[in-house]
């Protein structure tokens, strides 16, 4: 009886795995190829920035010796590959973890929330089948990541062994976070909450790893950081301690494998102890009546976006504090890193160049928020709730204006929150907090017109092609970020290509003073955004709604 039960618990795993592969046939390969392309780009950037051994040594010493910079990456000896890992490991590990946790949630909790699990659950499908299928697919994706990441470094002339270790150290983090998501998918009945819980775990892992490196010390070579104990508590820390291009500490796969196994056992236990459709965490009851502000298009959309906004606000203020706090170290930069900021910031006053490029990145992050909330709001049309709203006395125009207004006010809020936290932290280390804020607050809002253009793209795409709007919008955002000189600078593209990104045209404030030419450019971007939004609104007013059948 008991053995029978165990066998049956996995029944149907094979067919569910094939189903998951079929559903992810575009998204997972896209993730994997993007990650490999990013690593190839980062490696190419390092190769071209560090032509001589002297450059490698100088830059690695800088990254090792500066406690603030250690937060971002672990220095591990003088090599171009090692230097690439310092600059890119955190980004790639976080992205691999995101790919994994989103995939696992997609094939477990999201199916359950949408009712698809119930449909297949009635067929011959065991209790563990969907979880196992999700993990098989996700672990498989991470395994596929290893050779491609290794290849991305090898084509840039890096040694094979180190390149493979680099790939493994990134994929191992992805695999562990697949198991983390397997647990969070059991905890909450909501897909979004499950993703948010796993994402928070990822944030903590990144932070603990970084703090461990920051509190560490430099060894005799002055190019290798020996991390403090917190780094050993974090999977991202373990990945860095694998030290690709510097000894390849393979034994660290033991803690990875152990943690993965423990997490899986917990996830399996939780899966058998809850009802279908429910989470382990209790479902909270809410208000029996709407709060006064809720029953309006603006109030409703804000309520739906509020958790997303708060998450971004916390994240951006933490990053702002961090970048503000390392302002002191940045003023002493020299060599290739200083050259990069000088090029990107458009000035050789390194402090201004630094602030300019950081604000530009904050602007891009805010654009991601804007696209995310606009696309989510647009999804209410194809998912159905919009049918109920638009059959009340709310017109389509009023709805879209509330939608756009919410996204843009949120964006302004996020930019200001970032500028304030960066200004406060910079003021604490450099002095003159008021002066910092006086420069950073207006400069952050200069990012606005670039964000407006992308908002216009989403509105236009939604108005024209409701079912393709999301894909079009995300593609436009990705291209705008990748084609910006911050990233496209490393790629060998013709000069006009970066001009396609709205971010390219934003003035380099505060590095460059605001002139009338700058104002004309900003006005042109605003006009473009208004034109796109108007076209989108016009089409949305005059078309059939794309409601579920």
């Amino acid at each position, binding site marked *: 009886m008991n053995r029978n039960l165990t066998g049956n618990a996995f029944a149907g795993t094979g067919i569910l795995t094939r189903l998951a592969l079929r559903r992810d046939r575009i998204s997972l390969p896209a993730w994997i190829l993007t990650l490999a392309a990013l690593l190839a780009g980062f490696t190419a950037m390092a190769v071209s920035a560090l032509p001589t051994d002297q450059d490698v040594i100088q830059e690695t010493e800088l990254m090792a010796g500066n406690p603030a910079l250690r937060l971002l990456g672990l220095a591990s000896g003088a090599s171009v590959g090692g230097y690439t890992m310092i600059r890119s490991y955190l980004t790639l590990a976080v992205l691999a973890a995101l790919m994994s946790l989103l995939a696992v949630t997609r094939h477990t909790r999201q199916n359950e929330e949408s009712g698809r699990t119930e449909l297949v659950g009635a067929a011959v499908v065991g209790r563990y089948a969907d979880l196992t299928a999700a993990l098989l697919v996700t672990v498989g994706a991470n395994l596929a990541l290893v050779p491609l990441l290794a290849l991305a470094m090898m084509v840039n002339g890096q040694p094979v062994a180190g390149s493979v270790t680099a790939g493994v150290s990134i994929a191992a983090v992805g695999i562990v976070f697949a198991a983390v998501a397997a647990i969070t998918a059991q905890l909450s009945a909501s897909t979004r909450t499950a993703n948010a819980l796993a994402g928070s775990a990822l944030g903590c892992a990144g932070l603990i790893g970084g703090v461990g490196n920051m509190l560490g010390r430099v060894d005799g070579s002055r190019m290798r950081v020996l991390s403090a104990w917190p780094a050993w508590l974090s999977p991202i820390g373990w990945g860095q301690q694998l030290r690709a291009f510097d000894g390849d500490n393979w034994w660290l796969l033991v803690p990875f494998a152990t943690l993965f196994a423990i997490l899986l056992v917990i996830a399996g236990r939780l899966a058998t102890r809850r009802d279908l459709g429910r989470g382990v965490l209790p479902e909270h009851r809410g208000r029996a009546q709407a709060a006064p502000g809720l029953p309006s298009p603006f109030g409703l959309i804000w309520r739906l976006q509020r958790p997303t906004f708060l998450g971004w606000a916390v994240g951006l203020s933490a990053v702002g504090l961090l970048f503000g706090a390392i302002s002191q170290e940045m003023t002493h930069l020299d060599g290739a890193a200083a050259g990069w900021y000088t090029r990107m910031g458009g000035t050789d006053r390194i402090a201004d160049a630094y602030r300019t490029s950081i604000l530009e990145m904050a602007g891009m992050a805010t654009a991601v928020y804007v696209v995310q909330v606009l696309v989510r709001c647009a999804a209410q049309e194809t998912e159905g709730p919009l049918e109920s709203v638009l059959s009340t006395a709310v017109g389509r125009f009023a709805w879209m204006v509330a939608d756009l207004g919410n996204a843009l006010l949120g964006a302004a809020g996020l930019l200001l929150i970032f500028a304030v936290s960066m200004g406060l932290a910079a003021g604490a280390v450099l002095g003159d907090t008021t002066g910092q804020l006086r420069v950073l607050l207006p400069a952050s809002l200069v990012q606005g017109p670039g964000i407006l253009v992308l908002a216009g793209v989403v509105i236009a795409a939604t108005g024209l092609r*409701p079912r393709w709007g999301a894909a079009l919008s995300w593609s436009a955002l990705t291209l705008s970020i990748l084609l910006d000189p911050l990233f496209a600078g490393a790629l060998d593209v013709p000069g006009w290509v970066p001009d396609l990104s709205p971010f390219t045209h934003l003035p380099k404030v505060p590095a460059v003073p605001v002139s009338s030419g700058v104002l004309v450019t900003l006005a042109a971007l605003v006009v473009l955004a208004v034109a796109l939004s108007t076209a989108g609104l016009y089409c949305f007013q005059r078309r059939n709604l794309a409601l579920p059948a």
Partner: protein
Amino acid sequence: MTAAISTSALVKRFGTVRALDDLDLTVREGEVHGFLGPNGAGKTTTIRILLGLLLRDGGEATVLGQDPRRDAVTLHRRLAYVPGDVNLWPNLTGGEVIDVLGRLRGGLNPARRRALLERFQLDPTKKCRAYSKGNRQKVALVAAFASEVELYLLDEPTSGLDPLMETAFQEVVQEIRAQGRTVLLSSHILAEVEALCDRVTIIRAGRAAETGTLAELRHLTRTTVKVQTAGPIGGLNDLPGVHDVRPERSGLRFDVDADALNRVLQHLVQFDVSALTCTPPSLEELFRRHYTDHPSPGPDPAETASSLAGAR
């Protein structure tokens, strides 16, 4: 009598499929109008056009004397809608959704809201994610009925409700009718239609196949007659309007067109009738005749439409 809803020659195309093909529909003010038809016949499409959510490709449509597309906002203050598939925001409670939809419509009656929650036994503090299909349906029903409007558009509103709730629903609709308000009720539950509807429109493949009171519709169809006589009945097959004569254990059974009934009865008495039953057609039979006599051509237009538009 004025019409609350009137469409004439309404056409809606999804790609090459004509989902609505010259549909004529008239709903009189103050009546409960049943809207029947097989899946994919165009019921939901019609209602969405009446709400201005979809655009018509031809014909005319007037709702409460207004144009459903041009006057959408002012019109929607005067009506309430319960969609066939109720999709709600998973992280809002049922109570919040009721208030949001009610107040976006222009206001709801708090006393009525309380009474309806009680009647439908709905817990308004649960998140919509946690509601079953039936309970989501109840949220939409309470949100609609808590608003005192002139017209209610209900698209299969009771699919998923249990029999007790079905009774509660019928009571509420009777009250609404007593107050002189108008209801368009799309439904598959024939007992519900028989209990509630003053008039019925049967729609097939985007056309109104039949419209009228139930009595009028019955008149158009056949009555089943069971008869026992002392001796064998002769000449029955030669009478006009008699169909499907078949022998029973004791006697005969056959169907008669409504207008031929009198003549057939006169014929039968010649043979010394000992027992006679006449059964008027049930709505089921009426329905089945319309659905199966003419098999619906082509695929389901709604499905085709979404696949043409590149649905998920």
